[in-house]
């Protein structure tokens, strides 16, 4: 690892030192990004810049199985070292929550890379599933998809409990292995549990869909029928498997909750105008400034 410098100026304020921020940043569909004039590089850049500024302000970060944590472990290592806090050891600053069975296949090389960077939190499968936690189950059968849905929900639930606010950027609307597209499930959980959320809509994807739902214009990509058609195995799971004790898949209820919250119900420390700007801008400096402004204004 390179020798990144700890910042030793004790007078630098850390206004966000009491906050743990959940980061839901992932790729929008390629054609959505391309339509906006963006690519993977922009997303990677946003990932790093948001992390940089939050860590510099003293915040701790949580990711939910984001492959970038391993992919950018070197950068994250440098950042936590640069902006280290005397009372919080480096690996405490960043957490990477992994759902079962994803952590079973986590390579030793990745664990080694993350050793001084992040704490890996392996969320075990819910007891009532009665499965052997050491035996991988693939998501290519209805039973497998049901298990994955329950486990991803368990991970998201635990992560939500343990974060104070959440940032959303991008996100795929198809190809998910859980109950809902990941960012949709995470946003819904955050909103219904009263956590402030920041929706960075400039990169499109799930985040843009959530924004439309808040505005009362839910897109087709947030309907049961859309996902049934996109993924026949998912459709089979909806028809034949129960997710109890989790709530069943219910897009209309989700949409209703988003709409009831509306763009004015985010309670994230930002004015309506600032939130609208955050929904639209693709400028990373502006996004970062708005998020920091909101977080610093939280009660």
């Amino acid at each position, binding site marked *: 690892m*390179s*020798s*990144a*410098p*700890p*910042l*030793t100026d004790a007078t*630098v*304020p*850390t*206004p966000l030192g009491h906050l743990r921020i959940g980061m839901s940043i992932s790729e929008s569909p390629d*054609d959505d990004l*391309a*339509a*906006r*004039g*963006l*690519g993977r*590089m*922009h997303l*990677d*850049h946003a*990932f*790093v810049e948001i992390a*940089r*500024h939050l860590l*510099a*302000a003293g915040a701790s970060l949580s990711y939910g199985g984001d492959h970038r944590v391993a992919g*950018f472990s*070197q*950068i994250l290592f*440098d950042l936590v070292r*640069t902006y280290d806090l005397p009372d919080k050891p480096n690996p405490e600053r960043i957490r990477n929550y992994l759902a079962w069975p994803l952590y079973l296949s986590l390579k030793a090389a990745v664990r080694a890379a993350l050793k001084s960077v992040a704490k890996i939190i392996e969320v075990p499968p819910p007891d009532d599933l009665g499965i052997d936690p050491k035996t991988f189950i693939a998501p290519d059968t209805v039973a497998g998809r049901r298990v994955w849905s329950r486990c991803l929900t368990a991970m998201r639930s635990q992560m939500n409990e343990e974060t104070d606010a959440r940032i959303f950027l991008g996100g795929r609307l198809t190809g998910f292995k859980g109950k809902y597209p990941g960012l949709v499930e995470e946003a819904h959980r955050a909103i219904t549990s009263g956590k402030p959320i920041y929706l960075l809509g400039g990169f499109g994807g799930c985040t843009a869909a959530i924004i439309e739902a808040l505005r009362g214009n839910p897109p087709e990509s947030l309907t049961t029928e859309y996902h049934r058609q996109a993924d026949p195995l998912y459709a089979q799971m909806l028809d034949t498997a129960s997710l109890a004790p989790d709530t069943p898949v219910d897009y209309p209820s989700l949409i209703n909750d988003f709409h009831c919250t509306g763009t004015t119900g985010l309670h994230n420390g930002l*004015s309506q*105008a*600032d939130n*609208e*700007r955050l929904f639209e801008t*693709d*400028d*990373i*400096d*502006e996004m970062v*400034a*708005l998020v*920091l*402004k909101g977080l*610093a204004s939280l009660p």
Partner: protein
Amino acid sequence: MSDTSQCYHPCLAVYVLWHPSFERGEELASQLYADLCNNPQRPAERSIGIPVRFRSGPGAPGERLPREVALDEASHSAVIVLVDDEMVADEDWGPYVARVCEQVQQSDGRHRVYPVSLSEYAFQLDPTVAAANFIRLHENSPENQPQLLLNRVTHEICRLLLNRPRAGDEQGNLAAGPAPITVFISHAKAGGVELAEEVRNYIHGNLQLKTFFDAQDIPYGAAWVEVLRESVGRSALLVLESDAYASREWCRNEVLWARHFRAPMVVVNAISDREPRRFPYLGNVPTLRWPTATALPYETMLGMLLYEVLRFAYFPRRLEELSRLYAVPLKNPAIPFPPDLLAALQLKVESAASGSPLFVYPDPPLSTEEMRLVRQFAPELCFTTPTMLPLLNKDSTES
């Protein structure tokens, strides 16, 4: 309290346009992004951070063209158009690019468009896109095109930034016509002339840069310094460090004066054998080993220099916008490089004059052991990077 959204207006945005069927378009665009904006794969490098946006894929499902270029979203927009056969052959793209050119023409010089020929037919794209304005790359091999493209684009963006008054600076130094960037080729006569002449000849044959080449161009003494002083902000020092360089008083003076005026600098390390004592003030700048193994050695050398000119031109402007965005007034000029003791020596004086101890330099922050030296030397000064701006309130910008 005004909304953040009303305060923010980026000073520069770059757009790269390419036809979706142009196989190398994405690669060339990504390379420009990595060089001009940020390369997360090379975190140790101090990137410039200019926002770069792409215009290639359809702007909406069912559309054939990308979304329009929003020139006025930034104070200056530089539009790079990669014109290949696919773009020329596609009936819709000519008018699309022509629209951009028309808007640029109406922008009173604030925005520019740089078509790049990647095909011999590129000049047929559209009558509005004049052949004279092209960056001509189609006769170069594909392996060389990325470096040449970056160098030409870097140079053009420097000219765009340096020939316009700064925001709010209406009485600014706007030359009657575009003033070229000046390269001072600093070299020792003993062992350095041949390389210096080769560099000068390359520049004259290939780039629109002015060169100053030793005492034959201008007299010794105060006049040289006056030329440097007058071209501050648009001049750069290229040090050709041969074996005898450090032993020459005038070479040493050139370096110290360039440092004094905070001119961008690159050192070409052309030591063939040894030097008894390396000049201590050649540090804190990019260096290039000479001869270099790259395919285009002079382009590599001049590309590095132009990149520094761009860094020095862009960082202060970006900092101005960030200071507005975060409502942190900054009384001192931006420092486009991490501070060293020589810089701190000058900044002590500037800080005493301005009354503010705060200086901002580009991310990433300087390493601890270096900063310790600077703090020891100038404990009254405070150095920080743009990342920390949101954490500074107005009070802490005074002492």
